[in-house]
């Protein structure tokens, strides 16, 4: 620790701290543009200049280490002045230079109102300029469908370039030319290839890179901001939903160090237009092969007529990928009351069973825990598409120090180097037998991590083999939980926590959707499957997608931005989404629909409000009350049990459940923006294949 004086306040900081960090420790505010905590230091905007006693010139505090400061002549601690005349003058000078080529178009700039340059010019600038020449003009660049450019406004902080090169691992942006002619662009104005590209608009401290889909549409001060969580994948990124009136206008990331730090994927950010279109805003009934609008009463009556006469063995319930814990709880309550054992939530065909213990189906090491791992084996997992932010964490770990990553499954660019071991179950068996040198790496690692992805979950024998391998290499000990299941659906872990799996003698997911298997199927938002012919299908969901087109009764529900709902992410972390607006038309919150339906069916659920529902839920599943935390499970026992399953693996190559990253659920499929991203990504894939 080194002592340093900041504006007369003595602080004791680690010697490797920068002056900027030391100043922040002392409570001094340092303006900055190019510096960002999570990116490398560039030191090119010069806004963070401070006066350092003894230095001949002001120094850039973001790039000057405390240990490089000279002590005073008698060994006094070095002294930094952030409010001195020299510092003020330096800041004013830098600001004047920055504004030389910055257009005065704040009134028409989308960044206006949340612009770093605007704020800092007010706080640290002067009121006029002495520059009488023409400002430079820079051509607009096309860098993709999600980010609009206004390059006149660029101040060349290179945050976007550094983000893509360092965090996203897809270095598509660069600065061409030099001096006054420096321009930020992608190679020949191709679209950026990263699934995290939307973040560059957040990072841009000025209005040069702004989100394209909501261009010219919103002002930050007219939005109501709701803190919520994302459901587009199982990671559960922290988001802020910005709504104007009833309509969601944009989704921005929130900081959550345990999950997404401060990034979100493009799929999390841009399903906004998908929330507006294709919505189910009233109940529908199928008559003569066509769906017709109906009232709630008609719809419930039609359901009651079918269910009341049905044999509980011929009734089933499916839960899809976006359902919150509350409605799953309500559905389970209703089905149990009806005596139905045919329940399943495992739409992807995962052969996981809550009976094996919670640690058998969650990502035990947790996302921050990835940073402690020193060797990673991916079994049938492509974290880049299945859980983008988790992939960012693996990449962060790889940047911190040497990390061996082995991949069994489809070979792909993970944004960090990996050893490709093979395509399927054969390779897993060979690796377990030690026929591949990667086993030595895993065994030699102190904290190896085995990640089992969706592609490997369909066969219990594969899960057992992966668990046995994890045990064998010492991934599961009392101190280290190195066995993680990578889910892709936000609802899955919550539904498994509630035990929404077939009861005694019940059919599983594929058994239920087989043609003729059931008479009545209650489908709570399962859109990635088609229920077979013969069944009367009640679909409750938000969008006119695959599920609604096969339905006989459609009940309009609320999307994740329109209800307060609990979601459990892949780590088993319990989080709550909050309501940013109301569902459209006659649509209602899902638990309330089920509560009303239970009344009609004669099995009234014992709660009349969300609070009462949650009370019942927490009484039955106490761990769900601990919002924001992960209930540690007994990993050793769970993995032992998994490994004990045994069985012989069928010879097969692993195929990722995420075929198109941008279109994995009905909300995303309704979005025009994500459709454009998807078609660009397909084009890139074709080009790469050539």
């Amino acid at each position, binding site marked *: 620790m080194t002592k340093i004086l900041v504006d007369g306040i003595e602080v004791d900081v680690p010697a490797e701290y920068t002056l900027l960090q030391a100043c922040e420790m002392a409570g001094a505010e340092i303006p900055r543009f190019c510096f960002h905590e999570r990116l490398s230091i560039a030191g090119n905007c010069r806004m963070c200049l401070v006066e350092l006693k003894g230095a001949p010139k002001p120094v850039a505090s973001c790039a000057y280490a405390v240990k490089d400061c*000279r*002590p005073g*002549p*008698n*060994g006094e601690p070095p002294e930094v002045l952030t409010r001195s005349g020299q510092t003020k003058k330096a800041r004013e000078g830098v600001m004047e230079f920055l504004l030389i080529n910055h257009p005065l178009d704040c009134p028409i700039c989308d960044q206006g109102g949340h612009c770093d340059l605007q704020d800092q010019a007010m706080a640290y600038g002067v009121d006029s300029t002495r520059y009488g020449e023409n400002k430079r003009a820079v*051509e607009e660049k096309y860098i993709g469908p999600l980010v609009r450019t206004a390059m006149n406004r660029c101040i060349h902080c290179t945050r976007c370039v550094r983000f893509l090169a360092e965090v996203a691992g897809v*270095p*598509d*942006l*660069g*600065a*061409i*030319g*030099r*001096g*006054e*002619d420096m*321009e930020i*662009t*992608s*190679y*020949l104005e191709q679209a950026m290839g990263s699934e995290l590209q939307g973040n560059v608009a957040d990072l841009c401290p000025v209005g040069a890179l702004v989100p394209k889909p909501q261009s010219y549409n919103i002002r930050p001060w007219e939005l109501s901001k709701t803190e919520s969580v994302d459901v587009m994948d199982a990671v559960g990124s922290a988001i802020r939903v910005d709504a104007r009136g009833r309509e969601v206008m944009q989704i921005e990331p929130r900081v959550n160090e345990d999950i997404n730090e401060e990034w979100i994927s493009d799929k999390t950010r841009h399903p906004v237009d998908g929330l507006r279109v294709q919505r189910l805003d009233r109940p529908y009934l199928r008559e003569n092969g066509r769906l017709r609008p109906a009232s709630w009463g008609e719809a419930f009556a039609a359901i009651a007529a079918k269910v009341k006469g049905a044999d509980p063995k011929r009734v089933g319930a499916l839960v899809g990928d976006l359902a919150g814990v509350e409605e799953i709880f309500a559905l389970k309550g209703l089905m149990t009351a009806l005596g139905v054992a045919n329940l399943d939530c495992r739409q992807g065909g995962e052969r996981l069973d809550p009976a094996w213990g919670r640690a058998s189906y969650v990502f035990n090491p947790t996302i921050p825990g990835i940073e402690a791992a020193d060797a990673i084996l991916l079994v049938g997992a492509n974290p880049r598409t299945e859980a983008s932010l988790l992939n960012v964490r693996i990449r962060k770990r790889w940047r911190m120090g040497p990390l061996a990553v082995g991949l069994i499954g489809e070979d792909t660019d993970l944004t960090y180097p990996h050893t490709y071991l093979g395509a399927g179950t054969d390779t897993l068996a060979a690796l377990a037998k030690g026929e591949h040198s990667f086993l030595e790496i895993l065994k030699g690692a102190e904290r190896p991590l085995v990640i089992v992805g969706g592609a490997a979950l369909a066969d219990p024998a594969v899960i057992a083999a992966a668990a046995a391998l994890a045990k064998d290499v010492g991934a599961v000990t009392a101190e280290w939980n190195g066995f993680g299941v990578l889910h892709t659906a936000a609802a899955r872990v919550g539904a498994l926590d509630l035990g929404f799996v077939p009861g005694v003698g019940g059919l599983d997911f594929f058994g239920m959707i087989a043609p003729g298997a059931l008479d009545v199927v209650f489908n709570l938002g399962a859109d990635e499957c088609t229920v077979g012919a013969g069944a009367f299908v009640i679909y409750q969901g938000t969008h006119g997608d695959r599920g609604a087109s096969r339905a006989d009764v459609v009940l309009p529900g609320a999307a994740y931005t329109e209800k307060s709902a609990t979601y459990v992410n892949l780590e088993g972390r319990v989080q709550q989404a909050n309501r940013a607006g109301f569902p459209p038309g006659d649509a209602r919150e899902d638990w309330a629909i089920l509560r009303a339906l239970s009344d009609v069916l004669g099995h009234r659920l014992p709660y009349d409000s969300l609070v009462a529902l949650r009370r019942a839920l927490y009484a039955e599943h106490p761990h769900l009350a601990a919002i924001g935390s992960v209930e540690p499970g007994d990993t050793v026992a769970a993995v032992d049990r998994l490994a004990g399953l045994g069985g012989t693996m069928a010879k097969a190559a692993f195929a990722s459940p995420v075929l198109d990253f941008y279109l994995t659920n009905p909300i995303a499929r309704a979005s025009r923006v994500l459709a454009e991203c998807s078609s660009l990504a397909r084009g890139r894939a074709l080009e790469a294949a050539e």
Partner: protein
Amino acid sequence: MSNRRLAPASEQPESFAFTQENAAWAKGQIEKYPEGRQASAVIPLLWKAQEQNGGWLPRRAIEAVADELGMPHIRVLEVATFYTMFALEPVGRFWIQLCGTVPCDSCGARELKGMLQARLGPAGHVSADGNFSWLEVECLGACCNAPMVQINQDYYEDLTPESLGTLMDDLAAGRPVNVGSQTGRVSSEPQGGAATLSDPTLFDGSRVGAWRQRFEDKNKAEGDEARAKDEAASTEARAATEPKIAKPDAGRPVERPVSDAPAQRAAGGDAPIKADDHADAAERGRSIAKHGSARPGDADVLDSPAKRVAEGEPAGAEAGAQSDLPRDAVPPQPEASGASENAPAAKPSEPSTKPAEPSAKPAKSDPAT
């Protein structure tokens, strides 16, 4: 300078690949850098690609270089657009880069620019006959002979619009031209020939170095030995009474340890060499001394000046090479101020009381004695 863009698609070649010879050369360049640092070879490779492609860099060449070095395309584009020496559009057979920075500008680069503009049209365009194109660039580092241009690989200096015109005519016609100054100036001499150092006596030894002769004569006359003795004695006397500071502290606090050096350990009273230092040195294989051989710290086997003196050998026979002094000890005082290489022989002095301090004696024994 203006925005530098790749040439339009109509001028871009369909493909680019290094010739076999250049590819081998490129491989040699890449091998200069350690594994993982191949991107360092980007500028040499771009040079070669430009040379192979008739003086300019097409898009395919940029991509080929990027692929060869495993860099993203945008990174190579950044380099290619940064330096004006990489032409991104076709250039003439003779590519004139006119320096327009301040020294050249104040010596008439503006007239040259006007002349080029009049003769070849705007910058960046190839003349109709394909012979010339020109570009104003920043300082090329030949300010002393301003104004100047670079044509392909060569500098042409001290230009006027007329001489540049003649030069271009000669180049176009294939006549031989003089590289360098066009006024006959030799390297960076003043205009009109050298004005200093023109006295021939400077070079015949009668003036430069004459002092040395004078000293030699004087020494001979006064008797070398007596003089040297006096001076040595007086130096030693001075050293005892007014020691010089070994290490100027330049205002820094001096108590800060710099590193864990043997000299510091010695000053602190510890053994200067730890046992595991030997092991380290042996492991790294970089030690000059053989493992287990004598080291400066091993006092009994040390070939110290004191020991040598005791054996009757002149102390400091290899002085000048390295001092065994601890950092904080008083260094040897300068030798007799005569500075003559023919200084009198050093008589072996009395063994010093401090064995670590080498005796302050001349570096070489005089063969004459």
